[in-house]
């Protein structure tokens, strides 16, 4: 069974987005990226930025169902997929447009989220989510 994790900064961002009407369905939209997919499907998502052994670092575009304007004006999700362990860890999630809109993740931000991911993974601080229950939190890693 695939387990979906987030790092703490992603959870903070999601909480912030949920408080804004323009992103109210962000958890539902995030779940739609993964729902019904096998680990192979997720591992083979097209925009694999980096690959190492049986792990990939992937970026995906998803629609924001609050604005109905397609993926170009939707959300961006960066995540690691561990094919062997069937783990998906979301390390960055942001909207492209609106109050919290972001053009791209900067190299500095990326270094920070990778460092955060490694620290939380190594210290068992990742938190799991249910993608069948609107990305609600589950138990600690």
């Amino acid at each position, binding site marked *: 069974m695939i387990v979906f994790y987030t790092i703490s900064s992603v959870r903070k961002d999601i909480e912030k987005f949920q408080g804004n009407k323009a992103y109210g369905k962000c958890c539902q939209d995030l779940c739609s990226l993964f729902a019904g997919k096998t680990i192979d499907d997720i591992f083979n998502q097209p*925009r*694999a930025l*980096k690959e190492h*052994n049986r792990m990939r*670092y992937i970026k995906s575009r998803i629609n924001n169902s609050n604005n109905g304007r397609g993926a*170009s004006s939707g959300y961006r999700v960066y995540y690691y997929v561990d094919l062997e362990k069937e783990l998906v860890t979301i390390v960055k999630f942001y909207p492209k447009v609106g109050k919290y809109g972001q053009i791209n993740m900067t*190299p500095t931000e990326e270094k920070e989220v*990778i460092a955060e991911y490694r620290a939380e993974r190594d210290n068992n601080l990742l938190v799991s989510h249910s993608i069948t229950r609107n990305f609600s939190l589950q138990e600690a890693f």
Partner: protein
Amino acid sequence: MSCSATLDIEKIKSTLSSLEDTEKIIAGSDEHLDLILDIQKSLSENSKLTASLVDTVEANFRNYTPTKAQEFIARVFPLFDMAKNIKRAIQEEGIFNEVRSHWEEFAEEVDDLFEIVNDLSRYKSSADDDSEMFF
């Protein structure tokens, strides 16, 4: 060059050609209403072509070698200047408000293309294997 690379390059050519047509429409029409309708139609066409180009690059992203990524970036770059020229020309004609929504839709697709070009440059164009830094 692989089939997918050829497809990417062909899509750049058709998108650039469509943007050139938009520039010609703006420069060539005398009738105000015709001009607005033609530009709206042309911008919608540009939006579709640009979105399709992004989808194609994304679908082939894993297969980009540094050489192929650099070639793609070099070939697609004129498109961003053309998009700016189109906006300037529309503003000079004084019809920006009439085509605003079509322009905004096109601009979103151009931003999306710029983003994927940036990703190609950042993750694919270097010959050095820095993968371990990410894991």
